[in-house]
């Protein structure tokens, strides 16, 4: 595997709130290489979005970020804001769940893509306009020349998301971060958008980080996956392996709670995620875990190798061997 183009080490994010310090991300390691599509899976409160917002430098000033985020050899944490602005949209881009939030309703689509191009490259108006149409075509918008002259409200949800993808890859970034890009879309449109992302990746070799809560989406497009819980990475590895023999109880719980063909009764994960204002000293999943032991609560478990996976469960060996049910 080639060198990682994005390397995150021990990233920690805390927020100052009236009720105290909120520990949203508590030491996350992460890497992705060119041409790879990594999935990041977690539920609400897991810190999956905050991690990458922090990497992009998009968090509000009251957020404290420590750790290291190295993009193509350059450290981003603590970097000059002007430098970060020049990187965003050029070397690293991010798209979100709601495409409307990235689109200016009073500007034409073509102009918005051109603006994206011109703010990072020396390119004439005419060339930018041509390139914009090419990009629209690349993301599968029919009659791109005509549609470039339209406004965001004239596009449907799926089309808007394609436009946003076009804007994000306009400058051929090394890394594209997609935060729940298809969650708000119909399932048939979701399939189209995932296909666009894969196509873009194949063409440009972009490293893609796909953040989602949908394990099906991960199974479809990701090659590797990270599972996050309570601000930490609890398991990671190649997609096939993780789905086939997950080692962390949370991952197992997630897979078990999905409706399956012929399932009589679903198995939810009982309990609630921990309070991130006073995060537990030990494993965050312990209160909800059927395999929990006192040792689990004593110390925060680190990610370690376990076969072809990385797991943060100290009892992984026994769990897998015990044959506890999993899909």
């Amino acid at each position, binding site marked *: 595997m080639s060198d990682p183009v994005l390397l995150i080490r021990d990233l920690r994010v805390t927020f100052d*709130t*009236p*009720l105290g310090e909120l520990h949203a991300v508590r030491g996350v390691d992460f890497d992705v290489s060119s041409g790879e599509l990594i999935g990041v899976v977690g539920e609400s409160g897991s810190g999956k979005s905050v991690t990458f917002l922090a990497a992009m430098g998009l968090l509000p000033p009251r957020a404290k970020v420590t750790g290291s985020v190295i993009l193509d050899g350059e450290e981003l944490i603590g970097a000059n804001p002007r430098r970060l602005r020049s990187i965003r949209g050029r070397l690293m881009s991010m798209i979100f769940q709601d495409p409307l939030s990235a689109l200016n309703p009073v500007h034409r689509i073509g102009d918005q893509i051109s603006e994206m191009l011109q703010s990072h490259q020396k390119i004439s108006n005419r060339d930018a306009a041509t390139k914009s149409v090419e990009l629209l075509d690349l993301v599968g918008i029919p009659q791109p020349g005509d549609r470039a002259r339209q406004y965001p409200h004239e596009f449907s949800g799926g089309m808007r998301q394609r436009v946003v993808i076009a804007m994000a890859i306009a400058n051929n970034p090394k890394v594209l971060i997609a935060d729940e890009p298809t969650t708000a879309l119909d399932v048939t449109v979701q399939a189209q958008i995932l296909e666009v992302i894969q196509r873009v990746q194949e063409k440009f070799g972009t490293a893609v980080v796909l953040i989602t809560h949908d394990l099906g989406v991960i199974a479809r497009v990701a090659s590797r996956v990270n599972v996050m819980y309570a601000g930490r990475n609890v398991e990671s590895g190649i997609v096939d392996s993780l789905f086939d023999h997950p080692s962390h109880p949370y991952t197992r719980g997630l897979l078990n709670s999905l409706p399956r063909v012929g399932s009589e009764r679903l198995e939810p994960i009982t*309990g*609630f*995620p*921990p*309070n991130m*204002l006073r995060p537990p000293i030990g494993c965050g999943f312990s*209160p909800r875990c059927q395999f929990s032991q006192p040792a689990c609560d004593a110390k925060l478990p680190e990610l370690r190798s376990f076969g072809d996976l990385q797991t943060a469960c100290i009892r992984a060996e026994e769990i897998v061997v015990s044959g506890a049910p999993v899909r």
Partner: protein
Amino acid sequence: MSEIELPTLSPRRMALRRFVGHKAAVASCVVLGLLVLVVILSPLTARYGVNESVRKPPNSFLPPQKIAWFGTDDIGRDIYSRLIYGIRVSLIIGLFSAIIAVAVGCVVGAVAGFRGGFFDDVVMRVTDLFLAFPFLVALLVVRQTLGALSWLTPLVGDMSSVRFIIFLLAFFGWMTVARIVRGQVLSLKEREFIEAARAVGASRRYIILRHLVPNSIGPIMVALTFSVVGAIIGEATLAFFGYGPQAGAGTTSLGILVQAAKGAVQSGFWWMVVFPCAALVIISLCINFIGDALRDATDPRLDMGH
């Protein structure tokens, strides 16, 4: 259950907490509170009667000194005492006209918003019409009309009475309140918890009283505070043109005091201008700060917790 065990925070308590965080508003409450106290205890706090001269002539246009803290006016009356009586009248006018305006505005706005249709259209066009006229012109025209309608006089009183002015200002105030309430009702109407109430068989009246009103208290309170300011300034405007409450016969108001100072500006009797105007400004500012803080405190988006 691994949740923070906090005492139940009702939306009301959360709003209070947010309000208290606005320092300007809290200071305003204190200032206004003191002012109201002074004004209520007026026979005690004022040093002279409303029409009383501070001493035998020469007593006119005396600058601020021991016998007259804020100086005297053209016929030797203590401005400090007159200010206290004047503020009282202005506050009464402000408060009551605002209450009437809000009461009427709420009902009209709620019904217009909730029912929609023809009634809503009519009400909106009427308010549009009135709000389109320059305030001053409309004020004077309505004043004449209202006064000319002799059958209304038992209710609203004589044209130069305080009561008349209260109703006159309320007449203008309700329209703004109606718009605010209507807007609020329109946005609430489509919320799912309203649909849930309908799904259970709730009547229109139940929904308005039990759901729409409590969720509109915020904007209504804000409308109330801004109506008070509007009325106080409206009264000052009326008085400035000589249409204030009966002058001379013992009633004075902030507006009358400001109007009396018209001539004094050029002659250098600054105390006649400065003190009434400062009072007007301070009162308006305080109420505005409180209104702003109320608006922030009752922001419905914050009802959803952190």
